[in-house]
């Protein structure tokens, strides 16, 4: 893939960033992305991001767990291997509740986690394009994607806006 070029501004405070995002978008400019050292509440709204469906996925996974457990145990105790343990009925539902619950949780948690990694493209060994190493510590970045077609005048425009919105540093970077 062709190298990615970005122009980004660094902010020292999340509130400034959020304001900046709002103003920039109001000027109809397309923000590539924002990088923050910690979850900034309201940033996603400001950027107009969709709400994630991750938790819905979690529910599906959980339901799968419940079903797996119940059907599995039911099949074993009543059909495949019915054994008389202490004179209890083969189908003794109360005794299955613990395992059913545990499997529900297990499936939901693990399923979600894997989905989460997948969606975020997270995995051991992934080499991310790091905009600025300080964004995981104490700085907040707002990036704009540019390419060879982008005119210098356009770039200047971007930098101006960034500066105006309170960016302490503005850089161009190419991956």
């Amino acid at each position, binding site marked *: 893939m062709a190298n990615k070029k970005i122009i980004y501004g660094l902010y020292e405070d999340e509130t400034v960033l959020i304001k900046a995002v709002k103003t920039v978008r109001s000027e109809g400019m397309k923000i590539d992305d924002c990088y923050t050292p910690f979850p900034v509440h309201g940033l996603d709204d400001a950027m107009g991001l969709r709400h994630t469906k991750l938790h819905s996925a979690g529910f599906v996974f959980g339901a799968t767990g419940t079903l797996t457990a119940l059907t599995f145990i039911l099949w074993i105790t009543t059909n495949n291997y019915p054994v*008389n343990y202490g004179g209890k009925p083969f189908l003794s539902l109360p005794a299955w509740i613990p395992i059913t619950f545990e499997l529900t949780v297990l499936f939901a948690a693990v399923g979600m986690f894997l989905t989460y990694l997948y969606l975020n493209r997270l995995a051991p060994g992934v080499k991310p394009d790091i905009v600025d190493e300080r964004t995981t510590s104490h700085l907040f970045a707002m990036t704009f994607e540019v390419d060879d077609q982008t005119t210098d005048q356009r770039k200047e425009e971007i930098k101006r806006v960034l500066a105006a919105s309170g960016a302490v540093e503005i850089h161009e970077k190419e991956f």
Partner: protein
Amino acid sequence: MAEKKYWKGLEELNQEPELVQLNQLEFNEEIPVDFFDGKNDSLKSNRRDFLKMMGFSLTAATVAAGCEIPVRKVAPYVFKPEDITPGIATWYASSYINGGDYCSILVKTREGRPIKIEGNTDSKITKGGTSARVQASVLSLYDTSRLRNPMTKGERGFTNASWDDVDTAITGKLIANPNANIRILTSTILSPSTKKVFAKFTEKYPNTKVYSYDALSYSGMLMANMASKGKAEIPDYDFAKAKVIVSIDADFLGTWISPIEYTKGYIKTRKISKENPNMSRHYQFESRMSLTGSNADYRVAVLPSELGTVALNLYDAITGNNASSGLKLKDEAKQNRLKEAAEWLKKHRGQSLVVSGCNDVNVQLIVNAINEALGNYGKTLSFDNSNMMRQGIDNSVKDLVSELKAGQVNILMVHDCNPVYDHAMGVDLAEAIAKAEMSISFAGNMNETAEKCNFVCPDHHFLESWNDAEPKKGYLSLSQPTIKNLFETRQMQDSLLAWCGVMTTYHDFMMQNWSDSVLAGSIDKSTSFNKALQIGLHQPENAGGIALAIESAAAILAGVAMVNNGPAAGTDVSSAAANISAMVKKSTGVEIQFYESIAIGDGRYADNPWLHELPDPVSKITWDNYLNVSPAWARENGLTHGDLVTLTVNGKSVIVPVAIQPGQAFGSVSIAVGYGRTLIGKGGEGVGVNVYPLIDASGDSVNYMASGVTVSSTGENVKLAQTQTHFSLNDGLGQRRIVKETTLEEYKKNPLAGNEDRAEALAWQEITFYPDYFGKKNGFNWGMSIDLNSCTGCGACVISCNAENNIPVVGKKEVIRSHEMHWMRIDRYYSGDPENPEVVYQPMLCQHCENAPCENVCPVGATNHSSEGYNQMAYNRCIGTRYCANNCPYKVRRFNWFDYGAADTFGAMNDPSGTEDLGMMEDLTRMVLNPDVTVRSRGVIEKCSFCVQRIQEAKLTAKKGNRELVDGDFRVACQSACPAEAITFGNNYDETSKLMAEAKDERTFGILEEFHWMPSVMYKTKVRNKDKADHKNEEALDIMDLYNYN
């Protein structure tokens, strides 16, 4: 063209002779007979080896042992003998004869290996009962310490020899001087033919004398009977006929003369039902708490010296004489109890029985007089079929020693006895033996006496021998080999015959003897002999037996003569009374009594780990002998359980541990003989202390009691290997309803007596989530019923279970850590006065609950419920979480803490802290294992299986005979061993079964039934024939503080 030739190898091509020869043989490999000569003892086995060994024993037992069972011909296995089918047990009727002990038995052999002994129901004497010793005797056949060939003593101790060498040496000596003074010392000889052999030997060598003595002597009794009845014999006691039994220190249910027989009789008078609510009343006067005493209705603890007083007072009360001349029991209550006993005796003249275990001729004379006065002779005891089980005369050893010392003995032969160890004069004898020019021992295991002799000609184990026996006059019994002798041993009789130049084998000699005397009357002798052989018995109504008895009397003339011109003991009551009161006056201070333990006996069983690990029925202590003291006495002398004390008797001292024993008469102590063997193989070497030297044998009869004993603490304390450390059902909040008892009078009023609360317990079971989910099906639902009133607690079932189910022995250390493995245990509870408590025995095994708590909790389902209503274990599935054991309310599940059975996946491993090597893991010993039962590996749980292998076998047999399995087709191990017939096993779905009848009985109850585990094992209320006032069952008993366990 030339004929084409195919050849396998050059050897064949060139027709090498040995190959040609080999080709003709089917098995051209060596048969591993070297197995027997101990080279392999170092080998440890694993589970696979067990299978190998089954295969091996198939060959070895038949090729080596060659199934020379009753057949006289060796049958190589290639031709399958009719009576051996691999996997199918073959049974042989035989007789257990060990010293004077006798039991008619059936021997179960698998692939030619004897692995189990059951009682022979055809016997009129033992009636199918067995004892722990009988059950365990099969193990000593495979004892690793057995001698494997004859031995001669040289400068450098013993060296192995061949029979030829030995024979030439000995016969040479004999021929050289036919008039040599030969002395044969033996224990009681039951076998008429053996006596005949002695007679034969005496013919050839006229100066032969046969001395017979018993380590635990009854000669006091023999002498008394000689004096008062003119017969140096023990009468035939019939406890079944006795409505009132008074025992003066006779442990007739445990060790006295013929316990199996007496238990059989006694129990007839204890089995009661609504229809026949009568039982005998049993008074026991004794100083130590014996098995019999613990079963008595009334037990009075008296000092050893007071036993004579008891006899005299009984005599007076019955006859109205004044022989006691004011001699009384110090304690008023005890004296009254004594009077009461006398009253009951008087009320039951001819239906009562007074017996005494004292070896004091005087006491026995009085007892005879009492029975005489009560007219019991000819009714409850008689000399028609005198009991032959004890014939030893104490003076024999003394005479022998003096003869030896005087150098009057040229040749000494010791058979089936160990005087150096088990006689007070052992030490003298040990020295004196050297004085004989030649001394020969027939000991099967090297023992203390054999060690002193210069020839050891090992005798067969009784399971390898031909023999006959006359336990009671007129009752004959046969033993036959169930396996060819494992080692280069030879039967003593064969040796003697060989030495006196008789060329026949003992087997033929015996046959001849039978056709001459026993079968004199019968037409086809061989048939009738075989018939006798088949059932192992010959119990004619005619006097065939008597004829033999006379023969034998001649043989042991020496002994009898001594009795005749022997004892200075007064032959009439008055002088006896005088002697007694003299004795009473003499006795001062602490008194001691030496007794025979249920398991180890006189010491001849000391090589048997099964018996060592059998908890003493009363004290529940294993692997030791110990000084019994009463709780109060211990408190007074600042002694606690396990304190090591120096015991000094007659000037000799030993150091022994103290055991607090409720019921031991205050001021007296008691200790078991038979322990402290120094030469007896891994099994029992150095277990306990030998107290024989402390016994006073100076009198005409050995005196097992002594006074003026000192007991001084050494300040040390040891742990006793005790399997039960809590004795009371009263936990401080009241009596736990685990055992239910009542008194006879209550029972007569209401058969539900003592069991009234069962209805409530059963009512609780109605409250359930799953009302009978699996429903009542046809087919089988196995169950058991145990009659607490019959069970004497003897422990035969425990050993029987060991043998049947390959239960490992764990050793003292492990028992101390409560790691014993017994599937069947006998719980023993005390109630009432700690100084003389009431005792109840409760056999406890897996209860096979229908709603088993253990099954629910096993994560891998290794234990679950069979469709036949028993609780089954899949050892291979078990991962050993022990959850089931925790959740078992009866605590009957056992865990393999270490590799006790040598069945481990990783090979036998014992912990670094060192579980003892008891020789139980060696290949030879493992031949006793039952191939039908898995040997459990380390880390799995095991427990009673209701002998499922027997159930299955019975089902298959029934199926082959294509019929229904019927009640009584088979018996489980504990049931078949029980001499008291206390255990009933059967099918709960079979309305006609004996079990159902038991189940319907009012006395029947289950343990902890109210919890709705629905145990399949039911118990029947214990009924005591005593006045309600004396029945202190509810009274608290707390002697825990005397035990150093917590």
